[in-house]
C-alpha cells in the first residue's frame, strides 16, 4: 500500500537523509539504487520506477538530488510520486532552494518534516502553511512548546484561524500558456491552452470566496447564452474548492489558504490561430554554408502587444561564423544549445518581421547524425487571454463584514510552443 522508506541521495547515490517508515526493507538496499539506475541508463531503459528483487524504487530528481521511495508491495505509485513532488514543494517553502547543501544545512528540520508528512508510509499533513505553525527551526524563540494547530485535522486543513491584515486585498492572475506543435509543412498538429488562476490572498479571518467566470456551461444553464462565454474542457481545483458544489451548480466556492497558491487550472482544446507564426526557408550547401530566412508574424489583435519575444532557431552544432541581418530586435548565437536567438522586446499584433542568417559549415562532415530540434518561441502578451476567459466577479464574505479589494490581471504566454523544421 505505501512507501517503506524515503531517501534523499546526492548525484552519486550517497545517502544524505534516510527515513525508515515500515521497517520491512533493509536500509542498505539503497546502495543498489545507483548501480541499477546507471545500468538502465546505459540500456536506455530508464523509467521512474526501478524494480530490484529486494525492493522497488520509485524516484524523482530535483536539482542535484534524488528523492527515492522504496516499496515492497503493490503500492499506489501515483500516490508515491505525488508525495515526492509535494515534499519537494514543502522543503522549498521551508528553505527556498532545495539542493544538497540546503538539505544538509537543515537536516534536523528535514527529519522533523519527514516524520510529520508521512506515517507508516501514509502521507499525512503536507500544507507548508500549516506545518510552519508547529515545525520550525526557531524552537528556542518559542516560549512554550507548540501544539498541533486546529487546522491540521480540520476540514479546512489549509488555513489557520486568527489571521489578521490591516488592508484586505486579493490578487488574481489569470495566466494562459499556449501549447502548440506544428509540422514542418506548416500544419498545426496540436494546439491547446492551459490556463491557471493564481491567487495571492491577504484577508483577515475565515473569508468565504466565490469566483464567477464566463463559463459556458453556467451561462447556457442560466439563459445568458448570448454573452461571450468559454467552454472549459477540464478544470482542476486546489483542494480548498468544494468540488461537489462545482459539480452540481458550477459555483467555485472556497475558503482560501493564506498567501499565494494556485486556485485552479483548466485546459481548452480549441484550435486557435497560432499567435506568433514563424516561416523559415533554409538553404543548405553542404561543406560550405547554410542560410536561413526567417519570417515572424504576429496573428493576434492589433491592440495587443507581445513582450519579450524570443525565437529560438536550431542550427547544426558544427556551424560557425554567424552573420545576421534584421530590421528589428537583436540576434545572438548560442553555440551551447546549437541555436540562435532572435529577441524582439515589443511585437505588436498584425505585424511581420524578417531576419536573415548565414553560417559557415566545416568541409568535413560529421559522422553521427544529429536530432532535429524544433523552433521554439517564447512570448508574453499582457491584458489578453486567448480563450477569452473573464472573471465576472469575486465575492468575498467574512463574518466581520470588512471591505476588501480584488485585483485581476490577465496574461497569455507560450507553453510548449514548437514548430518542426524541415
Amino acid at each position, binding site marked *: 500500500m505505501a512507501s517503506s522508506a524515503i531517501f534523499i541521495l546526492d548525484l552519486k547515490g550517497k545517502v544524505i537523509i534516510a527515513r525508515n517508515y515500515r521497517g520491512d526493507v533493509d536500509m542498505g538496499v539503497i546502495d543498489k539504487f545507483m548501480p541499477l539506475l546507471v545500468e538502465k541508463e546505459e540500456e536506455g531503459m530508464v523509467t521512474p520506477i526501478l524494480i530490484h528483487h529486494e525492493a522497488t524504487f520509485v524516484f524523482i530528481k530535483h536539482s542535484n538530488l534524488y528523492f527515492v521511495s522504496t516499496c515492497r508491495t503493490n*503500492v499506489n505509485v501515483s500516490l508515491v510520486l505525488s508525495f515526492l513532488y509535494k515534499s519537494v514543494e514543502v522543503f522549498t517553502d521551508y528553505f527556498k532552494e532545495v539542493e544538497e547543501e540546503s538539505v544538509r544545512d537543515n537536516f534536523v528540520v528535514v527529519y522533523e518534516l519527514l516524520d510529520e508528512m508521512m506515517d507508516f508510509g501514509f502521507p499525512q499533513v503536507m500544507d507548508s502553511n500549516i506545518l510552519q505553525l508547529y515545525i520550525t527551526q526557531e524552537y528556542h524563540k518559542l516560549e512554550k512548546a507548540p501544539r498541533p494547530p486546529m487546522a491540521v485535522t480540520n476540514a479546512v486543513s489549509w488555513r489557520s484561524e486568527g489571521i489578521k491584515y490591516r488592508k484586505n486585498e486579493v490578487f488574481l492572475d489569470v495566466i494562459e500558456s499556449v501549447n502548440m506543435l506544428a509540422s514542418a509543412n506548416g500544419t498545426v498538429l496540436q494546439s491547446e491552452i492551459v490556463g491557471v488562476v493564481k491567487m495571492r490572498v491577504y484577508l483577515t479571518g475565515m473569508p468565504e470566496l466565490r469566483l464567477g467566470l464566463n463559463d459556458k456551461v453556467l451561462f447556457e444553464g442560466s439563459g445568458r447564452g448570448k454573452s461571450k462565454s468559454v467552454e472549459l474542457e477540464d478544470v482542476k481545483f486546489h483542494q480548498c474548492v468544494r468540488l461537489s458544489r462545482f459539480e452540481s451548480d458550477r459555483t467555485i466556492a472556497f475558503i482560501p489558504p493564506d498567501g499565494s497558491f494556485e486556485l485552479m487550472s483548466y485546459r481548452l482544446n480549441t484550435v486557435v490561430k497560432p499567435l506568433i507564426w514563424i516561416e523559415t526557408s533554409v538553404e543548405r550547401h553542404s561543406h560550405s554554408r547554410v542560410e536561413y530566412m526567417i519570417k515572424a508574424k504576429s496573428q493576434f489583435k492589433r491592440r495587443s502587444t507581445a513582450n519579450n519575444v524570443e525565437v529560438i532557431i536550431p542550427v547544426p552544432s558544427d556551424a560557425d561564423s554567424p552573420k545576421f541581418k534584421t530590421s528589428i530586435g537583436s540576434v545572438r548565437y548560442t553555440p551551447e544549445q546549437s541555436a540562435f536567438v532572435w529577441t524582439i522586446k515589443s511585437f505588436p499584433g498584425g505585424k511581420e518581421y524578417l531576419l536573415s542568417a548565414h553560417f559557415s559549415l566545416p568541409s568535413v562532415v560529421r559522422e553521427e547524425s544529429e536530432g532535429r530540434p524544433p523552433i521554439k518561441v517564447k512570448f508574453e502578451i499582457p491584458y489578453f487571454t486567448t480563450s477569452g476567459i473573464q472573471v465576472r466577479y469575486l465575492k468575498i464574505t467574512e463574518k466581520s463584514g470588512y471591505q476588501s479589494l480584488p485585483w485581476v490581471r490577465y496574461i497569455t504566454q507560450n507553453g510548449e510552443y514548437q514548430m518542426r523544421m524541415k
Partner: protein
Amino acid sequence: MTDSKYFTTTKKGEIFELKTELNSDKKEKKREAVKKVIASMTVGKDVSALFPDVVNCMQTDNLELKKLVYLYLMNYAKSQPDLAIMAVNTFVKDCEDPNPLIRALAVRTMGCIRVEKITEYLCEPLRKCMKDQDPYVRKTAAVCVAKLHDMNPTLVEEQGFVELLNDLLSDAIPMVVANAVAALSEINEQRSLIEVNSQMVNKLLTALNECTEWGQVFILDALAGYAPRDEREAQNICERISPRLAHANAAVVLSTVKVLMKLIEQLPNDSDFITQLTRKLAPPMVTLLSAEPEIQYVALRNINLIVQKRPDILKQEMKVFFVKYNDPIYVKMEKLDIMIRLAQQSNIAQVLSELKEYATEVDVDFVRKSVRAIGRCAIKVEQSSERCVQTLLELIQTKVNYVVQEAVVVIKDIFRKYPNRYESIISTLCENLDTLDEPEARASMIWIIGEYAERIDNADELLESFLDGFHDENTQVQLQLLTAVVKLFLKRPQDTQQLVQKVLSLATQDSDNPDLRDRGYIYWRLLSADPAAAKQVVLAEKPLISEETDLLEPSLLDQLVCHIGTLASVYHKPPNSFIDTARQPLRQINNSASNHTAAAAADILGSASVSSAPQPAVIPAQDNLIADLLSLDIAAPTPGVSAGMSAAPMPTTGGDFDDLLGGIGGGMGGGADLSGLGGIGGGIGGGLAGFEDGNQAAAGNAGIGLSDWFGGSSAQTQGVQLPRQVWLDAAANMGLQLEGTVVRRNGMITLDMTITNKAMQAMSGFAVQFNKNSFGLLPAEPLQVNAPLFPGQTINVSLPCNTDGPVQRMDPLTNLQS
C-alpha cells in the same frame, strides 16, 4: 549558522567525546551532542554504542531534542532490544502529556519501534490515544494500529483494536476517518477482518469531500475494493465520487478513475449514465499528460489499460499522444504504444505522417519502435497497408542500418497478414541483404526468401550465401535457414537437391543444438519417406496473424483495471506478483497451521471474486477452512447442496495458469510450419475437483506436453515417460495437490495422476472435467477414486483418454483457455 557543521567531526575518540557531551549538565551542549549523533547516524556511522546515553536525554521538555532522541530510538532499538525497554517509561508518560503534539509523537514513535517487548506496553497507551479528545492524536493512533498489526496481528485482534478502528470510521473529523480506513485496508490486505459494507461506504463518501488529498486517495482505494449490492448503489457511488476528477492531485484523479472504471462494469452497458460518465473520464486523463514526466509515465501506462478495456473513451484524443521533442524517452515510448492502439481508419493518415517523422529522429530505440509501429498500423488498419508499405520502402531507401533491419522485420509480418499483395517489393528487400546483421532481421529476410522462393529467381544463390557461415549464425537464423531451404527444395526440386542435403547435414551432423538437430531430422525423414506429405506439411497454408499484438488477457486486464495507479498497473502484471512473501510479522498469527490455510483460502477467494462473480468479496475470518467455505456458499445466491455436483466455474489466476502450462510452444514465423508436427505441443484442460458437503474445493487447469506424438513411426508402444509435474499446487488450491504426466499405454493416451490431500479435512467425490481443447481429448471412463482421501493421504490414479471430444482450436495449440 547551519546544521551542516555537525557532519564535520571526524577525529578519533569521537564516540567517547560525544558520550561526555551527552551527559553534560548544560542543556545546550546536550542538544548539540544529540544533533551530532544524528548526523553521524545519517552518514551511516554506527553510533549504537551511545544508546543508554541518548536515552537518558529523552526526558526533556525541549520538543526538538525529544524528536531527535525518538528518531535515534527508531533506528537503533531493534539492535538493542533490551536497552530499548529503558525508554518505555518515558513513552508511556509522554502518552499522557497535556500537549497533544507530544502524546501523538510518543504513540507514533512507539509504534515504529519494532521490538516485541515494547509492543506489550504499547497496548494501553494506544487504547487511550484512540479515544483521545484531540483529533491529531486520534489520527496518529489509527495508523499505529496498522503498525501494531504488522508486528503482532494476534494482539490487535485480542485487544479489540479492530473494533476501535471501526469506531473511528464514524469520527467527526475527516482526517481521522481517512487514516482509520487506510489502516483497515492495510490490515485487510493480510487478513480480512472487517467487511466493507454499505453503511461504511456512506461514511467514507461523506468524509471524502472534506479530507486531505491523501485521505481522499485512501478512501477511494478502499472503495475500489467494495462491490455494491445493486445498480442503484453503484450509480450513487459514481455520482458522488466523480467530482474528484477535478482534483489537482494526480493520485486522487487516478484513484477516482479506478473506482469509476470498476463500477461502470456493474451498470447496464448502454445506459445514458455510462455515456455521460465515460465522457467525463477523457479530459482528466488528457490533463495528466501535462503533469511531471514521472506522473505522465504512470498515467500513460494506465491509459494503455483503459484504452484496451474501453477504447471509446479516448478514441477522439489521438493528437494529445503525439510525441514532443523534449519528452523523456520513457514517455515517448509509451505514447507510441497508445498511438498504435488508437489508430483507426479515420486518423491513420495523421498517425502515419507522425510515425514517419519519428523514424528519422536520433534515438535508436525510439526510431526502431516507430518503424515497428508503422508495420503494426499496416496490419491493424487494412485500408492503410498500401501507404504503410510505401512509407517503409521510403525508409529503407534512407539506408540507415537499423531502420532497414527493423523495416524488414515488420514487412515479414505484413506479408503474413496480406499474402500475395506486396510481393513486388521483394526485389528492393533483396538489395539490402548485405546490410542485415541482426538475427531477427536476417531471420525475417530468410523467411521471406523461403516463402516466396518460386518468385525469386536467385533464391538458391541467396540462401547458399548464408550457408557458408552457418555455424556462426544465431539459432533463430539457423532454424529459419533450414526451413527456407526445405521450402525452396519442395518448390524447385530439380536444381536444389545439393543445397538441401548440405543444410540437412549441417543441421543434423555438425550442430550440437538439439532444437536444430531435431528439426533437421524431422525434415529429413519426412522428405525421404513421403515428399508429398512433406509438401503438405511444410507448405501448408499458415493462419493469419492477428491484428492486435500484445493485448492483455481479459481476466488480467479486468484485474488490473481494479488496481489503476498501482505498480501492477504500471507493469501490467497481476497484483499478487508484487505481494511481499518474505515479510513476516514478529510473531506468527497462531501456531496452528489451520489458521494459515484459512488465510490462504481467503486470499484466493478474495482475488477470485475480483474477476468472477459479483458476490461479497470478503470472508469473515474463521479458524476452519471448511467453515469459511460454508459461509461463502450460504451467502452465495445459489447454494450448491447436492454432493457430487459437477464442477462450477473455476477461479484461475493468471500466474498459476502460466506455471501450469507445461506445453512446448512451437516458434512463430517459420517455426509455425512445424507446430502440430515438430512442435508436438499438446494441452489438456483438466479440471479436477474434490467435493465435500457440496463445497467445491479446488479446481484448475493443467497443461500437459504430449511428448509422444511422433513416436509411433518408430514402432514403440510404450512412449517416453515424462517425469510427473505438479499441475495443481496445494498452497494455491486449498490443500489439493495434483501431480501427473501423460503416457501412452496400449495405444491409449493415459493421464497418470497422483492426488495428495494436504488440507485438514477429508476429500471425496472426485471428478474430472476437460475443457474443450485442441486435440479433442476426453476421459474414456469416469475418474475412479472410491474411498475418501484423508488428510495427508496420497493416491495414484490412471485415467485413459480418447480423442473423440469436441475440438476447439487454441492459439497457440498448447493454450487451454482462449
